[in-house]
């Protein structure tokens, strides 16, 4: 039990915060209902994928500054491929873009391994490269998305055996997110590869000496990051119906959510659930700020304060909660 609290306490606390925010939202706007929740889920989608992409590499002891640029590139690629193409063609575009993300992500990893330069520099460099590539694909926002793709995040999923009112709270966007993340994350977490990713993040030398193929693991971690980023890029195209070559604000948001979600920058610790809940928290805060019609200039202050306060609080309870006798 105490081990559960130690390992999952942060995530549980975050979840409690989320529930608290939902209650607050309902108080602010009594009409807040399932439709609004659907909006929230759709807003969360690109952030959640960005944060998943970031989480994998952070756990592996790295950082990926190219997440947002990767999303932009995959988004414009998808949008320009689907422009004027048939609905069925999108069936080919989606896997193609996912593979593209995976390969480009792997390339990040390969460059890190081969150049031996720090992750932060390599991904900073690829940030520019991917941005440039996105501009070459589409010089200005444009392109299109297949209608069935756009429909895939609108509305709700009828879940057999559940009453309608409950179905209404299962927006397609949320179901899509959960499915996409679980399909990759759960098997990964249970596999030796997953352990290896945690291992190289925790202590690279020890991992190497334990026989972990460090280089290969790092490359795969970045490839997975690329894959998640490609999902994020697709989700952008799906929700906006276009591709935009300028990266959105997903990089810093992803780093912030990773830390809020209890994943140590430095590697080896944490999971995916925390950061995803953190994304919901951050988006819901944004909703509340809008519902309250707070002065927009003050919202920046509030968002910054919340970020700092939550992390400080976390740090504070870890300092306090240290067992007696442990050397700090």
């Amino acid at each position, binding site marked *: 039990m105490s*081990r559960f609290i130690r390992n999952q306490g942060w995530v549980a606390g975050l979840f409690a915060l989320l529930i608290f925010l939902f209650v607050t939202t309902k108080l602010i706007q009594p009409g807040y209902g399932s439709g609004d929740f659907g909006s929230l889920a759709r807003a969360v989608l690109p952030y959640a994928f960005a944060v998943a992409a970031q989480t994998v590499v952070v756990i592996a002891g790295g950082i990926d500054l190219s997440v947002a640029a990767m999303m932009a590139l995959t988004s414009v690629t998808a949008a320009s491929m689907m422009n004027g193409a048939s609905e069925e063609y999108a069936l080919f575009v989606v896997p193609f873009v996912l593979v593209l993300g995976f390969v480009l992500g792997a390339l990040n990893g390969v460059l890190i391994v081969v150049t031996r330069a720090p992750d932060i520099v390599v991904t900073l460099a690829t940030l520019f490269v991917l941005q440039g590539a996105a501009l070459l694909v589409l010089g200005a926002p444009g392109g299109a998305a297949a209608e069935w793709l756009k429909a895939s995040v609108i509305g709700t999923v009828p879940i057999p055996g559940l009453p309608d009112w409950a179905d209404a709270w299962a927006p397609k966007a949320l179901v899509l997110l959960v499915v996409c993340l679980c399909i990759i994350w759960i098997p990964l977490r249970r596999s*030796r590869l997953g*352990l*290896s990713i*945690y*291992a190289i*993040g*925790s*202590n690279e030398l*020890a*991992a*190497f*000496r*334990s*026989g*972990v*193929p460090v280089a290969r693991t790092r490359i795969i971690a970045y490839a997975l990051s690329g894959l998640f980023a490609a999902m994020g890029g697709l989700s952008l195209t799906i929700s906006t119906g276009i591709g935009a070559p300028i990266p959105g604000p997903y990089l810093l948001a992803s780093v912030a959510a990773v830390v809020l979600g209890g994943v140590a920058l430095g*590697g*080896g*610790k944490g999971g995916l659930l925390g950061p995803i809940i953190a994304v919901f928290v951050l988006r819901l805060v944004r909703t509340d700020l809008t519902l309250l019609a707070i002065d927009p200039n003050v919202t920046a202050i509030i968002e910054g304060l919340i970020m700092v306060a939550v992390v400080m609080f976390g740090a504070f309870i870890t300092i306090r909660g240290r067992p*007696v*006798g*442990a*050397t*700090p």
Partner: protein
Amino acid sequence: MPKSPLLDATGVAKNYGAVAALRNASLSVLPGEVHALMGANGAGKSTLVKILTGAINADAGRILIRGQLLDVRSPAAARRAGLLPVYQEPSLIPDLDVLSNLRLTGTPVEPFRAWVRELGIPNLDIRDTARDIPLAILRVLDLARALAVEPDVLLLDEMTAALPANLAEKVLEVVRRQGDAGRSVIFISHRFVEISALCDRATVLRDGSTVGVVDIEPGIEEKIVEMMLGTRIEKTRVAARAANDVAVVGGSRPRLSVRNLQLGTKLNDVSFDLANGEVVGVFALEGQGQDELFATLAGSIRPTGGTIDVDGAPVKFSHPSDAIQAGIAYVPGDRTEALAMQRSVRENIALPFSAGLRKWGPIRMRREQVVVSGAIGRLQIDTRAQGEVQRLSGGNQQKVTIARWIAANARTILCFDPTRGIDVGTKQEIYKLLRELAGQGKSVLFYTSEMEEVQRVCDRVIVIFGGRVVDTFPVEEADEPALMRAAYGLPRGARADVGILADVRPASDAEAAS
């Protein structure tokens, strides 16, 4: 008929920039043999182990396993070839629990558990995160993990150095049985007792070259030392002074006076005095509260009860700097805790000089140079790779941690197992140094995991068991059986009924224990 070697390495060389870690090392191990690899600090033992197990690649050399040429390019390849190391530093992944660590290396769990029990840790929870496990236990887990896959050749790099006596004993016992079972073990240690109890032959390295291979037989010790160091060294018994001398030097007030010290469940009612000019030994089995005692005195942890007086005045430490201000310096047993590994030897030694707010200004480089090189000279630190401490050999790193407080001229030094992983020659130096410090009126609190050290350096010994001081011996009475009995919490005079401790030397029948 001579058996053909299981492992045969010849002409191994490895350079780090200008430093030659290995020049021409060779090592040949027979099946079923426990083979010692010996050498002074920095001789290249760890480097050779790393090369044999694929952790680093050699610049030159040839490695044969069962007569077959083998290119061990990675730890995984070495594992496949049946070579398994336990390195000088723990190799479990800190943020994974033990079970995940086993899965990561594909180690079978049940054999591992069996070995862990065998090695004297009955109640390990394999769901514990490695980071939360004490260093000594981690070392044992490393060994159990290696044993569980039944390697052909087991390479143990200073396996016992960080272990308290009870665990070390178990390890030796297990290792010896490996040899009996036909598997080979390469065993690195600076402790001759262990070597003579355990090993069949020894390969001696000096300055990166193999200088000889000898059979272990009574009296060979001197010869090995000679080969290791190139010269004969005097193995002196440092004379401890009688307790009444101390009182004269120190005056009536003790330098450090601890009363009823309490720390959660770890320390109960610890009281003792440390006089000026006195070396007091602390002896304990693993995990009896000695770590916490030292950390408390060093200001790293705040006690939950009791008092500490320095020179008769009560003190409360809330940070190590308070202790340092009071002239109390702490040398931790784990050197990675004490050193800035990427910085130079000089910066590491001079670090306390800049600690205080008042000392943040310009550094007087010349004065610092003098003080630092004085300390380096006094501990004879091998400074060939001094640009970064991490490039020093383990033993030399250990010396840097002590040199720091010699340079800072601390009045009281809390030494936690300072000779861990230090070669014989240097050990003598350190004993001498501690006595010299005592001679200058400084006081030393000295925890050791090696019983014979107690007699070499200490004036008095206190024994801790279950967070309490269970006994205090003048050095004359601190023979090994007495210490061991006390360490197990057995009162003095009850010796007859404890057969287990008849002789602590693992050489004797430790099997009788169970």
